[in-house]
């Protein structure tokens, strides 16, 4: 792992000034993705190991730093998707053959990846998905339509989750590595979003897609178990990124309240103003500590569903609150189109929706606690 390359990229990113930010965040930048790839981020999990998890901790630290340094929250989100959906999934569950064929390009960032779970009638209710993988000889035939798939418009591979039928028997969900250039795969329909605009999202149409059995990831029917682990890593990484983004906001707000004067003194000297920033810092400390503790424990012997759900809910909601606080302390200037803060708000909002909506995760915690519903 090359820390020097990583540090150089971070230094480079500290470049553009505030006024350039909204421009930078209008769409996906292949150039920026290329430079991020060269920094070695996607290879961070290479010493993941079965028991140590050193790679995961490195990735968590780097994504937090990326969130703190990069004004482009969409880039961070797309990078997290690449790491969790593809790099982690292949490393954790794929055959040696699949790993050898697809990991080098995924870790170099030259092949962009994503994962396709959500469908029109299967959002929170994942098990209601209609996409099927039917075994015919030594190929699975995939049929279905996925929506809201991060990176799909620019991806060369996708991990597709589908209901598996083998010899007429339903086996549950399985995961498949699918190349987007294969016949029957269409990723051309983008779904423009209100925020995270530099992270492309789109539909994935699968029509009679022939997938060799060797492209199934893990056991047949293990899709839900795999997805559970992938989502745990996605949450850990995405919300480490959110902590970094909150740190960035705090720094921006501190600078502003020290500079801006009203009533003959800096506005920060008013404790009501200062407190808005302090609240964000408290959330950074708590959320950051929780993320680190989970990264330390995840490869151990404890079930991590409740701590991970708690971290996701806490950080995503604190992230939105901290953008609102930042807008408030910036006054009218924070609401201008030229300000990056309204974009930050639209970027922060979906944190309560993706990787399992917060309401659903609250329900899950209640069920895990044994509360009968």
């Amino acid at each position, binding site marked *: 792992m090359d820390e020097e390359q990583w540090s150089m990229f971070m230094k480079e990113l500290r470049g553009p000034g505030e006024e350039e930010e909204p421009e930078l965040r209008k769409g996906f930048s292949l150039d920026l993705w290329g430079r991020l790839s060269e920094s070695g981020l996607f290879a961070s999990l290479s010493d993941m190991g079965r028991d140590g*998890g050193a790679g995961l901790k490195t990735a968590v630290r780097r994504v937090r730093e990326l969130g703190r340094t990069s004004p482009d929250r969409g880039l961070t989100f797309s990078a997290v998707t690449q790491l969790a959906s593809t790099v982690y999934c292949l490393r*954790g*569950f794929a055959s040696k053959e699949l790993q050898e064929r697809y990991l080098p390009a995924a870790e170099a960032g030259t092949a962009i990846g994503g994962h396709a779970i959500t469908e029109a009638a299967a959002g929170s209710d994942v098990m209601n998905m209609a996409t099927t993988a039917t075994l015919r000889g030594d190929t699975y035939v995939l049929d279905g339509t996925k929506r809201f798939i991060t990176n799909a418009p620019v991806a060369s591979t996708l991990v597709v989750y589908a209901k598996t039928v083998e010899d007429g028997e339903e086996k549950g969900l399985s995961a498949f590595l699918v190349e987007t250039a294969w016949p029957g795969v269409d990723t051309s329909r983008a779904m423009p979003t209100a925020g995270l605009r530099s992270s492309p999202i789109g539909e994935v149409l699968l029509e009679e897609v022939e997938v060799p059995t060797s492209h199934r990831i893990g056991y047949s029917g293990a899709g839900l*178990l795999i997805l559970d682990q992938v989502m*745990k890593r996605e949450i850990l990484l995405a919300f480490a990124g959110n902590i970094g983004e909150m740190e960035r906001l705090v720094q921006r707000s501190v600078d502003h309240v020290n500079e801006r004067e009203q009533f003959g003194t800096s506005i920060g000297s008013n404790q009501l103003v200062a407190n808005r920033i302090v609240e964000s810092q408290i959330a950074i400390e708590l959320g950051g500590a929780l993320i680190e503790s989970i990264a330390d424990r*995840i490869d151990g012997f404890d*079930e991590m*569903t409740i701590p991970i759900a708690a971290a996701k809910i806490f950080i995503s909601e604190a992230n939105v609150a901290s953008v609102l606080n930042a807008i408030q302390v910036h006054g009218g200037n924070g609401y201008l189109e030229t300000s990056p803060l309204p974009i930050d708000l639209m970027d922060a909002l979906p944190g309560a929706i993706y990787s399992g909506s917060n309401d659903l995760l609250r329900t899950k915690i209640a*069920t895990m606690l044994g509360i009968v519903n």
Partner: protein
Amino acid sequence: MSTINEVKDYITEKFAKDISSEDLPSDIDLNATGILTSVSTVQLLGWCGRTYRIPINSIPIDPDVLKTPEGIAKFIDSHRVGADK
């Protein structure tokens, strides 16, 4: 106590309170009977991890082995710390 009996005790105590552990067949399909759902499977795996020191978040798991008490016992015995893999 043998692993299979511990598994049956856990399942009947947590998810099938109206059955005694002696009456739970070793080969009962826990999914088909609705005893195990996606959430209770997560809870069961959590218990396996804690009790037998199995790194449940870092090993590929075949869902077929979690279908029956005897499959779960075999899974535990092959992954618990110190087991020959």
